[in-house]
């Protein structure tokens, strides 16, 4: 197990390195380098960068060097000083902008994950056990509607209904009276209340996939001889269900948690943009539209690293829950 963990973590470090390369190339993708964009922007504002400033900036990011030393300047700055580069759009270090918005993203994504998980687990088991019943069709249908309606359409419909019928203007994470307030229990509750709907909207997209996988795997398990054997020994149906086939069918369920994280974050970007929530989504979108590439690249890097960490955790949980996976991995190591 320990060996498996070490290998797994080691590999994920390599993945993170590759992600950083991808992010770096995305930063480099638009024509012109960072300083020339900065100069153009400054000129548009009627300011002018001194030759000395330009020189310092060029040196800082090794802009006259080949790409690998530029990459090195970028990544070593991040690791050693937490310097993610400069957002010329916000006129602040990128790391400040990110840190301001990331907590809300994590909160929203976490809430959405949790809802996805609960809903999918309950419906998945129910539909597999009652295959081809009215209830199966109904819940499968509900799940599929969630899968088929784009997140942003749900968000827009939600805004429309709230505005038209409840005369509420939706958007933001706090009710007006709490926007400027200091942190308090009431403010935190208000935040949770405002997060619930966006989280539910994001969760709708993920549940159907999980329901489907749970249902498929559980129905496969339900026909296995060991289930028949347990039933023949007179075990109660509910106990039997939770004790054997659900556990076996959990395997792919756990392994999907890892890649549910990116999909939740993807959903978050769109839903937050529509509802104009102060999370990373709208900021990332704005950064990409305006080619504020250091900010965009840093966001991608952080979201990517977070997802890798999530995947590692889900893999470790999978190995812990399913001895077969664990043994196969150590088998490969020998």
């Amino acid at each position, binding site marked *: 197990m320990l060996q498996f963990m070490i290998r797994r973590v080691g590999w994920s470090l390599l993945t993170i390195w590759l992600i950083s390369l991808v992010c770096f190339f*995305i930063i480099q*993708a638009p024509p012109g380098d960072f300083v020339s964009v900065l100069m153009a922007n400054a000129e548009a504002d009627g300011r002018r960068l001194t030759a000395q400033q330009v020189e310092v900036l060029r040196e800082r990011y090794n802009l006259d060097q080949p790409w690998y030393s530029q990459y090195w300047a970028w990544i070593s700055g991040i690791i050693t000083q937490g310097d993610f580069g400069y957002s010329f759009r916000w006129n602040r270090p990128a790391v400040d902008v990110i840190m301001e918005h990331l907590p809300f993203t994590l909160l929203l994504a976490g809430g959405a994950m949790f809802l996805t998980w609960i809903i999918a687990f309950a419906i998945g088991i129910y539909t597999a056990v009652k295959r081809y019943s009215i209830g199966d069709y109904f819940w499968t249908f509900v799940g599929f509607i969630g899968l088929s309606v784009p997140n942003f359409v749900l968000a827009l419909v939600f805004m*429309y209904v709230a505005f*038209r019928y409840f005369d509420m203007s939706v958007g933001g994470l706090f009710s007006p009276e709490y926007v400027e307030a200091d942190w308090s229990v009431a403010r935190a509750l208000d935040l949770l209340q405002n997060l619930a709907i966006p989280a539910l909207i994001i969760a709708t997209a993920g549940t159907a996939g999980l329901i489907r996988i749970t249902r498929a795997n559980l129905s496969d398990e339900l026909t296995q001889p060991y289930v028949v054997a347990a039933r023949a020994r007179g075990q109660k149906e509910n106990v039997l269900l939770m004790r054997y086939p659900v556990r076996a069918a959990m395997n792919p369920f756990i392994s999907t948690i890892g890649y549910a994280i990116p999909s939740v974050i993807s959903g978050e*970007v769109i839903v937050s943009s529509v509802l104009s929530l102060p999370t990373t989504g709208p900021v990332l979108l704005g950064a990409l539209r305006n080619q504020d590439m250091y900010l965009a690249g840093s966001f991608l890097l952080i979201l990517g690293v977070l997802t890798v960490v999530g995947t590692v955790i889900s893999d470790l949980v999978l190995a812990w829950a399913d001895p077969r996976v664990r043994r196969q991995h150590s088998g490969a190591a020998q």
Partner: protein
Amino acid sequence: MTTLEGPIPEEPAGRGTPGPQGSQGEQAASSSKNTKKDAGTRSSGSLIWRRFKRHKLAVVSLWIVIGVYLIAIFADVIAPRPAGDYNPDYPYVPPQSITLTDPGDGRGLGLYVHGYTQELDPVSWNRYYTEDPDELHKLGFFVESGHDYRFLGLFETDRKLFAPEDADAPFFLMGADANGRDIFSRVIYGTQISMSIGLIGVVLSLVIGITLGAAAGFFRGPVDAFIQRITELFMSLPSIPLWMALAAAIPREWGPLTIYFAITVLLSLIGWTSLAREVRGRVLTLRSEDYVVAARLDGASRYRVIRRHILPSLTSHIIASVTLAVPAMILAETSLSFLGLGLQPPIVSWGVLLQEAQNIRSVLTAPWLLIVPSAAVVIATLALNFLGDGLRDAADPYGGAVK
């Protein structure tokens, strides 16, 4: 477990193995309605089809999917107006209703739409439309529209399936946008782009996903580790932000068609991962199954073990993933275009149409800008999802044997 049972004659039931009984069995299959008796002699294809038909929702969805693709193919005939055709006199016109009536002026009984009367609010400059009870425009089938197009690339014509007989009459079945463009026509044309992106993108990612996934699961060791790293790399970048970043990097000077292909390639470059991962996980479990081990011990080549023993069991999962992938691609394209990073006008896709419903203000003025294209997206993706679900259940070799 299964190896202990030995060669019991009933065993092939539901597994779809071609029976050795030959023509006699085939006759029994066609004459008898008894499923249990003749199942063993049917081809696996017909067994799958039979199980598929049991899933009513999936059968209905199959027809809907066929219908949507037919709409895409015959968009030129169905859409009353060309996609870019605008009419500055009718911005934000609400949907018209069709009435069956006889105006009594010699045009006879038929389907008519009303014209509009407009009022301009002098303060807010908002237009208010009411249907004019006296102005009636007769509708007809296969009427001349004055807009030439090539029918399936074969011949030039201007006949439209269902349109007003007077080509200049206002005809906005599902309302119009800010430029007075007919939403119905645009959604019909959007079908072409949105549905084809899903299809092409999935074919591309299918090839990548299955090849890499099966190789990783089967060979394990360094091959697996390498492929896993690549897959993980793509999976751990949240797809929408990554698509956004890459789509933002596509030069805007490129023509619409080039952008269309670039977006399709982008979608499939990131979309193959879940397929690969699922295939790999399945192969990992399958390769330790008794019958696979037996085949390997018998000296079957790796290629043969993959093709003959592992891939067939994978089919149901591959089908499920693929049919889930098509609507996912459609949704991804829609989301990207909605955010303004995907396809660009003048190309018309459902996502491009939804761009106009981007803020709550325009949704409040003209709800049909949101409702009509979303309905198209939802119908298409819902049908594809149900179809995939039905196929998955049908291809599952164990599903039929139990019931």
